[in-house]
Each structure stands twice: as C-alpha cells, then as structure tokens.
C-alpha cells in the first residue's frame, strides 16, 4: 500500500488555477467516482479549501509520479500540462508527512492557523460518506489528527496573533484581560473594521457600536454582531462609555482628537481606554497616547507585534516538523502490519467455515438437536480454533514486514513457534 498526494496551493498555483481545480461539496461524489474509475486506486481523500486542493490516493502497488499525475489530471478542468506546472506530488513517507504538516497548519498561508485542522477532518468525513476510506486512510486519519493535536499542545505553533486585527484584540486583552463585559466602538465599516469586529466578537466582547459616515453601512456591520450604530457626528457622545476604540476610516485628517478623549476620560474617572488606529493617514491624534491610562497603537505598532509573533511561530515550526518526522517513522512501522489484516481475516474465515461444517456434520451424525448442547459444542470448537490461531496471528503481524528469505519449513516453524516447543 502506498499513499500519494497530488496538490496545488497558494505557493505553487495562482488563484485562477486554484479556483478551476477547486471541488465543491456537490461535485465531490462525481469526483470520487472518477478517481475510482482507475482500478489502481484503492482509497482516496479530496481536500479542497480556498488555498489548496489536494488529492490523496492509496494504491496497492507503488506508483510513479507521472502515473499519479495522469490518474488525477485526466478528469481535471485544467489539463495535465498545466497541472504538472503548478502542482506538487509526494509519495510514500513524504505524502504521510505532508498530510500531517497540512493538518497542523505548517503548510498554510498563515503559519499555524487552526482552521485547516477542521477542514482536514471534514475532508475525511466527506470521503467516508462517498465510501472512499478503508483501512489505510482510516489509520491515516487517526494518526494525522492525533499528531496535529500533539503539535498544537507541545509547540507554540498556534500561539500569538499573526494578523493585524487579531493582534489588536490580543493587545486589548493585555489591558482588560477578558473582554467580556467591555464595550467597543468601531469607527469605519471597511474590511479591516469588519475583521476587527469579528475578532472582538470571537473574544467575547460585551457590546459593539459602529459608526461610519454612511450610517447604513455602520448599521449593516453592527447588525452582524448584534451591536448598534451611531451617526458619525455623534460618536464622541458615547466615547466615555466605551473601553476599546478601533478606527479605520479613509479620512484625510484625524477624526478622534486629544480634546475629545480628554473629556471622555474625565467622565469615566480615568478608567483605562484602548485605541487602535489602523488607518493611513492616521485617524487618532498622537496626543491621545500621552494621556494617563490611555493606550494608543497605530498600524506600525501592530505590524511590529505581528512580525515578532511570526518569527516566534517560525521557531516553533522547526520543533513541530521534528515532532512530525518522529511520529511518521512510528506510523510507517505500524502501517506495515496493515497488509497482514487480509491474510489473518482469510485464515480465520477458513477455520471458522471448517469448524462450522464439521459441527453440522457431527450433530447430524450424532442426532444432536438440543440447542444448548450445540451452543456448548460451538463454544468448545471456537475456543480451540482461537487458541490454535492465536500464535500464527501474532507472528504474521510481527513478521509481515520481514523481507528475509525463509524455506517453507522455516516459515511454518516461525509461524507456530515450533522451535520453542521442540
């Protein structure tokens, strides 16, 4: 059995190619059908996210990279040549390592991002629904998810914010601890404000108020987070009620003056206030940061935080890669026993059929019809069979990956531990 992966991601393919390769949930059954039309494919999982599309396939016999390319590429919209140009192919151990790295976020656009873990889980769920997962990928799923969890707990790969808006929320937590019960004012309704509101909401902020020159946009954004909107010329009236202010407007001059904040601070008895200015040119006067108990950060400050956190994550990624390499070696060893399973099942079925037939013949000959007696005989025969097969089953698993040559006599002797009994 060999796992192979063909994929393309944000590093290897432009968005035009990625969107052509993307597989929606509705298209999945058709896609799986197409993959399994090749008799060499034993199992498969398709992972399709906004930044990557990957096809994991398990073949009974090892395949060359070109074979994999044609297996997948034939049915794709982009064609084999374009796929060859923008994709990567990993086979065997490399494919196993790749899957765990992807699930751990080591291969993501934002290093260590956690969403991919859920997307990998979802991909396996879909594959199972389409009957594409058997013994190998079942084990692979368990291994990938378990190792990913270990990576996340044992390394700091997912710690510290690496986006501007998330870093802003992280900074707010450094002042207020939990954001529960605190109020935030968002000045502007653009993409950055939307992201900041999302992160604030995710961090459990008590209430969000939005203000914007176009009130309807502010209302739309506020509605999404069950907050409220105030007209742009009225926001200074509520400044003393909010603890966090995030501003990102396109205004050419400052919209929050030092005087405004001074007055607000007086009203709130100088309780701490936190200002984040993500706009360029800046929305908040620099003098605000000099006021007592007022903390002001601009886009450059946040970039500094993000950069430091990114470096920290890169250091942690080295540890994560080492951890994954060790785990993959152990997985490869354990997966070798997988080829023993059909053998063991075959032997046991044969034995079971033989004892069943013998029991029926014996009962007919001895005219035994009492169900309790038959049950006792069945129990006795099963026990004997299990005892007889226990040693060979164990030895098949132990020696399945042993590539030394044995004579038939030696093999049988090994299988039944006959040397020990002599």
């Amino acid at each position: 059995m060999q796992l192979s992966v063909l994929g393309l991601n944000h590093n290897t393919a432009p968005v035009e190619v990625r969107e052509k390769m993307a597989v929606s949930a509705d298209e999945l059954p058709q896609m799986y059908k197409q993959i399994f039309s090749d008799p060499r494919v034993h199992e498969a999982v398709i992972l399709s996210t906004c930044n990557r599309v990957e096809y994991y396939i398990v073949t009974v016999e090892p395949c060359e990279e070109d074979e994999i390319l044609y297996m997948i590429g034939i049915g794709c919209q982009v064609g084999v040549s374009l796929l060859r140009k923008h994709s990567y192919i990993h086979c065997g151990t490399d494919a196993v390592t790749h899957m765990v790295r992807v699930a751990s976020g080591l291969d993501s656009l934002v290093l260590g991002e956690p969403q991919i873990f859920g997307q990998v889980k979802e991909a396996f769920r879909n594959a199972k629904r389409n009957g594409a997962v058997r013994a190998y990928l079942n084990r692979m799923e368990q291994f990938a998810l378990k190792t990913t969890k270990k990576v996340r707990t044992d390394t700091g790969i997912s710690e510290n914010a690496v986006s501007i808006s998330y870093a802003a929320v992280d900074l707010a937590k450094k002042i207020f601890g939990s954001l529960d019960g605190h109020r935030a004012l968002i000045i502007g309704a653009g993409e950055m404000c939307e992201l900041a509101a999302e992160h604030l909401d995710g961090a459990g902020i008590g209430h969000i108020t939005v203000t914007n020159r176009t009130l309807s946009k502010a209302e739309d954004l506020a509605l999404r987070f069950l907050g409220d909107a105030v007209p742009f010329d009225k926001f200074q009236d509520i400044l003393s009620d909010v603890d966090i202010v995030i501003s990102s407007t396109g205004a050419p001059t400052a919209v929050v003056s030092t005087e405004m904040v001074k007055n607000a601070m007086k009203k709130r008895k100088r309780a701490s206030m936190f200002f984040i200015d993500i706009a360029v040119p800046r929305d908040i006067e620099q003098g605000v940061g000099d006021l007592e108990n007022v903390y002001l950060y601009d886009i450059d400050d946040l970039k500094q935080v993000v950069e430091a956190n990114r470096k920290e994550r890169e250091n942690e990624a080295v540890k994560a890669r080492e951890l994954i390499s060790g785990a993959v070696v152990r997985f490869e060893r354990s997966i070798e026993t997988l080829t023993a399973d059909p053998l063991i099942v075959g032997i046991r079925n044969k034995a079971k059929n033989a004892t069943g037939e013998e029991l029926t013949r014996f009962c007919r000959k001895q005219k035994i019809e009492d169900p309790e007696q038959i049950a006792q005989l069945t129990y006795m025969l099963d026990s004997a069979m299990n005892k007889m097969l226990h040693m060979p089953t164990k030895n098949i698993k132990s020696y399945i990956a042993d590539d030394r040559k044995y004579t038939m006599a030696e093999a049988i002797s090994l299988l039944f531990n006959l040397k020990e009994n002599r």
Partner: protein
Amino acid sequence: MAYDHAVMFYIISLMFLLVNFYFNKPFLQLFTYIFAALAIASNALQIFWDWQHAGIMHFYALEDVLMLLSLSIGIFYLILSLRYRKPYVGFFLLPIATCVGIVSLFLTPPPIQSSVLENRWLYMHIPFAVIGTAFFLTAFAAGIMYFVMEKQLKEKKFGRIFDRFPPLAVIDRVNNGALYLGFAFYTVAIFASSGWARFKFDDSEILDSAGFKIKVVLSFAAWLVFGAIILIKGKFGMNARQTALASVIGFLSVLATYIGVVVFIVR
C-alpha cells in the same frame, strides 16, 4: 531544621521561576510550583513543630514573625498563580518570600521570657498583623507590577515582560483584593493589640519602653493610611493606576512600622 529546607526550596523555586521567565516552558513552571509547595509545607511544618515543642504559639522574636510572613507570602504566590492560571501574576512575591526566609535564618531569637509575651491577645494580634502585612505586601508587589506593565504598554515594548506579565485588569484585581483583605486582617490585629495593652502585667517593661510606644504609633499610622485609601476608594472611586500608587505608598508606611519594631523593640 525544616525551615532550612523551606528556605532552600524557596530558593530553588525562585530559580525555576527566573529560568522559566526566560524560556517559558510548562515543565519549568511545574517545577516552580512543586518547589514552592514543598517550601510552604516545610515552612508550615517548622511553625507547627515549634508550636508543639513549646506548647504555645510564641511570636516574641522577629525570626518567628518572619517565618510566618514567608509562609503567608508563599501561600499567596501559589494561590494567585493557580487561581488566575497566570504563572507570573505573583512574580514579585516569590523573591520576597525567599528574601524574608533568608533573613530569618540569620536571626537568633533573643532569650525573652515574659508574661507580657504569653497572652492570648498577642496570639491573635501577631498572626493577623503578619497575614495583613503579607496582603499589603501582595498589594505593593501588584502595584509595582502594574507600573512595570503599564510602562511596557505605553512605550510599546513587546518583549518578555510584556509577554509574561498578566493583563493590567488582572493585576488590578489582585491589588484590590489584597488591599481589602489586608485592611480587614490589620484591623483585627489592631483591635487585638488594644485588648492586649489593657492587661496589667507583672513585668511590663516592654510595654513601658519608648520603642514600644513608637511601634504603636507607627502601626496605627499604617492602619490609618490604608483606612484612608479604602475610604477614598469607596467614596470617590479610584482607577487602577491610582489604586496601584496607593498600594505602594501604603505599604511603605507598613514598612516603616516594621523598621520601627526592629530598631526600637527587638534589638
């Protein structure tokens, strides 16, 4: 003997705390907690042993008072760290407990035997005063921590201190709690000491000494300072920064009391 071990454990725990401040590894934190717990257990064992051995709780020497103080601070450190799940919330407490422990090791108890020192009011006064002081010390440490963290936030220094120290709101919560509890304990201590002072003792040389009178005045002054802080806080409100400043100033007044004790009474 157990106290020697306690001080040794305090030192080891402090070393782990400092090393972990640099590396920030969970297992180093675990060792900090384990050794702090061992130090607390040994410290408590020594106090219990002394009590059993002498038959009474005696706190007539500064050595005994410091032993109880290091125990209280050690316990506060562990409780705060576990309660807030922030290993550095009591960052300044462990060094203080260690220093108090080391100082008390170098002190030898004076051979004082007096009925003045074997009174139930005193048994109440000293533990309450010491635990109250430990609370004030915690508030003081939180106050210092607040200013350090505030400086990091204001000057945008995103280094280790910024990363490790707890949020300002958490420091403020610790400060407030320690301030109120400290005042409550100190109030009981003051009342107990007035009960003690009303007794007529056969040998009241200690009570008549000038040093004792100075100590009484200083203790009362410290109680008044903290009383005033709490009153102003309740009546007019104080923000986190003002509370931190008040805790630092307040504790310095308690420190003056103890310097008074050392200079005028024990020595």
